[in-house]
C-alpha cells in the first residue's frame, strides 16, 4: 500500500512558529525522499499529537516517554518507536528535578512536608509521571493533597511550574533537565535552562531539592500501519540527519545532540507500568 501524504506531528513547549521553522528542513527532506506531500502539524498540547497518531492522521512524531506510554496503552497497534536522541555524553536519558526557592528555606523533600507541590502537564514524564512514583517512594506516603504535601497541583507545563515556584504560587515543583553542566546556569539543557535564557528566573534564587533516576528520552515513533519501505526510508533519513545536516538536526532535535540510535518498545516498559499505576 502506498501513502498519499506524510504528516509530521510536533509536540508543544515552544513557539509554534519556531517549531514549524525548526522542522521545515526535515519536512523538505522527507518530501523529497518519500515523494509524497509532507506536512507539519503543531497542535497545542501533547494530546493533540497523540490523538492524531491514534486516529491515523499523523504518521510520525517525537513523543515524550509518557506520551508514548499513553499511545501504547490506548492502542498497542498504533505506533512503534524507531529512534531515540543520544545526548553529548552518550546517554539517552534525562532527569526530573525537584526545586524550590532558596529564600523559602526549603532544601530537601523533607522540608516540603505540608507545603504546596506543583506538577507540570499530566502527560509529561518528568513533570508528572516519574516524580509521582518516585517521590512517594522517597517520602513514604502518597501524593494525595494533605497526605504528605499540603496540596498537590498541576501548573500545566514546565514553564508554568518554574514560574509558579519562582513566584511562590507553589513551594516546590518538578521539571526536566539533562543533569549536565551547572545548576547556576539551569544545567546545559532543559526547561530551567530555557527559563534562564529567557530571563524568567535567576538560578541564584532556586535550589534543587530532588532528582529522579534517569528517564529514557522519548522515542521518535512511526505509525505501525505505514508501509514497510516508508518506515525503512524514514528511519534511515532520521538516523543520518545529524551527520548529513547538523544545522537541521539541531533544530529537529531541539539542541545539541550526539545523534540518534535505534530503540524498541522494551525500553519503555517501565514507563508504561508506571502509567498504568496512575490510571483508575
Amino acid at each position, binding site marked *: 500500500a502506498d501513502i498519499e501524504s506524510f*504528516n509530521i*506531528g510536533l509536540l*508543544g*513547549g*515552544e*513557539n*509554534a*512558529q519556531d*517549531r*514549524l*521553522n525548526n522542522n521545515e528542513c526535515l519536512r523538505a527532506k522527507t518530501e523529497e525522499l518519500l515523494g509524497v506531500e509532507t506536512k507539519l*502539524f*503543531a*497542535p*497545542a*498540547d501533547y*494530546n*493533540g*499529537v497523540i*490523538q*492524531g497518531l*491514534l*486516529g491515523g*492522521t*499523523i504518521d510520525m512524531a517525537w513523543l515524550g516517554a509518557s506520551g508514548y506510554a499513553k499511545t501504547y496503552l490506548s492502542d498497542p497497534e498504533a505506533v512503534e518507536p524507531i529512534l531515540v536522541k543520544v545526548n553529548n555524553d552518550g546517554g539517552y536519558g534525562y532527569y526530573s528535578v525537584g526545586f524550590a526557592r532558596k529564600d523559602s528555606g526549603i532544601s530537601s523533600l523533607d522540608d516540603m512536608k505540608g507545603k504546596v507541590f506543583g506538577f507540570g502537564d499530566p502527560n509529561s514524564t518528568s513533570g508528572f509521571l516519574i516524580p509521582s512514583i518516585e517521590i512517594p517512594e522517597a517520602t513514604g506516603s502518597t501524593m494525595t493533597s494533605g497526605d504528605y504535601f499540603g496540596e498537590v497541583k498541576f501548573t500545566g*507545563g514546565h*514553564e*508554568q511550574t518554574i*514560574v509558579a515556584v519562582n*513566584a*511562590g*504560587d507553589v513551594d516546590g515543583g518538578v521539571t526536566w533537565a539533562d543533569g549536565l*553542566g*551547572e545548576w*547556576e*546556569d539551569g544545567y546545559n539543557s532543559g526547561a530551567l535552562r530555557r527559563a534562564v*535564557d*529567557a*530571563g*524568567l528566573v*535567576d*538560578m*541564584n*534564587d532556586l535550589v534543587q531539592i530532588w532528582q529522579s533516576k534517569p528517564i529514557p528520552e522519548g522515542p521518535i515513533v512511526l505509525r505501525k500501519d505505514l508501509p514497510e519501505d516508508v518506515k525503512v526510508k524514514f528511519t534511515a533519513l532520521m538516523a543520518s540527519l545529524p551527520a548529513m545536516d547538523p544545522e537541521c538536526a539541531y533544530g529537529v532535535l531541539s539542541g545539541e545532540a550526539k545523534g540518534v540510535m535505534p530503540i524498541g518498545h522494551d525500553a519503555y516498559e517501565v514507563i508504561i507500568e508506571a502509567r498504568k499505576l496512575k490510571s483508575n
Partner: protein
Amino acid sequence: MASVDLYASADRLFLRKRLFTLGLPAAILAYLVYVFFAFDIPGLAERARWDNAQTLTRDAWSHKTHVTRDNRTGEISAAIEGERKGQYPQGTAPEWVTLDGTTTQVDLGSGHAVYFLPGNGLRYEIPGFGTIEAAIQGRKVVTNLTGDIPGWISLSKTRLAITTPEGRVSLTRNKTEVFNYFPGWELFFFTLKSPYYGHGPLQILFSEQIDPTRSNIAGAWNDFWFNEMWRHADVAWAMFETILMAFLGTFGAAIVALPLGFLAASNFSPFWAARFGIRRVFDFLRGVDGLIWTIVLSRAFGPGPMTGALAILLTDTGSFGKMFSEALENVDEKQIEGVASTGAKTIQRYRFGVIPQVTPVLLSQVLYYLESNTRSATIIGAITGGGIGLLLTQAMITQKDWEEVTYYIVLIILMVMMMDSFSGWLRRRLIKGE
C-alpha cells in the same frame, strides 16, 4: 390635610420599596463577598507578579539585544532577543558595542558602560553609584562589592546579576551577558540577514537597487513577507485559517440547520416525536460545547482547520436549529395562505410564503454568529485546530515573546472588528436594501 390612613399606606409602600431596593443590592453584595473569599482575592495581591507585568509591558513595546561572552572560549556574540535568527554575523556587533580584541566595551546609554575584561573579568560603570568589578576565579564569582548590597544586585558565590534601568548584566562561570533594551519591535520588517535591514521605506522605494539580483520592491516584499523572526506569511495564513474556520462553520451550520429547523417547527412538522427528537438533538449539539467537539473530532480528523470548522458547525447547528425553528414558528400565516389560495404546490408555498419572510431573520442571525465565531475560532484554534489562536497561546506559553503576543493580540482585535463591521455591512446590504 390628608388622612392618617393615606399617610400610613404611603409609609408602608415605601417600606416595601426600601426593602427591595436595599435587599437586592445587599444580596448581590453578600454573594460578591462570598466569592471574594472563595476566589481568595485577598491572597491575590501577594501572588500577583507585578514584575511579570512589567516584563510584559516592557517587552510588548521594546526589545533587547544580548551581548554574550562565552567564558570558556572567550568568544563574543551579539544577538537580538538572544535568538539564533537575530544573531549578528560572527565578529560584528551593533555600533554601541566596541569589539577591541581583548576588551569589549558595551555602552548602555546614560553613561552606563560595561566592559568585558580579559580573564573573564567584568566592569560596570554606573553613574551615581560607582563602578562594580567582578570576575570568575576558579569556580567562584569575586567582586569589589562590600557591605549592604542594593536590591537590584543579586550576588551569590556562583552568579552575579545587576539590573538597572539601562539594562541587565549577569556573570556566571559559563558566560557573561549584557541585555540592552530598545523601544520598538526589532526586525519586524527585515532580519539582519536581509540586505534591506536598516533601510527606510523611501530608500527602498526610490534609491538604487540594494540587492543586485532583485528589484527593490520585490526583494523587500519577499524579505518582509518571509521574515524569519516574525513570519508574516505564516501569521497571515493563520489569520486566514481562523476566518476560514468561522466561515465554514457558520455557513455550514446554517445550511444543515435550515431543513432541520423546518422539521423542528411545530407548524411545519406534523410528527410530534420527530420534532421532539430533533429539538433534543439541537440541545445536545449546543450543550456539548465547541471545545469538546474539537477534542472529539480531532481523533477522527486530526489537527487542522477542518476539525475546528466542523466543531463550530456542530455547535452552531444546535443554536441555529433552535433559532430557525422559533423563527419558523413565528411566521405570518397570511402570506402562506395568500400563496396557497392560488393553487400553489407545497414547495411553492414554502418558496414564496415562508422563505421571503424568514430570510432576513435567519440571515441576520447567521451573520451575527459569523462575527462571534471568529472569536470562537481563535479559541478553538488555541486548543487544537490551528490558526492565530494557536500562535497566540504558544507564544504566551514560552513567556518571552511578548512583543509577538502583542502583535497577535492586535491582529486578533483587528480581525474580529473587521469581521464585525463586515457582517454588519452585509446585514444592512442584504436585509434593509436589496
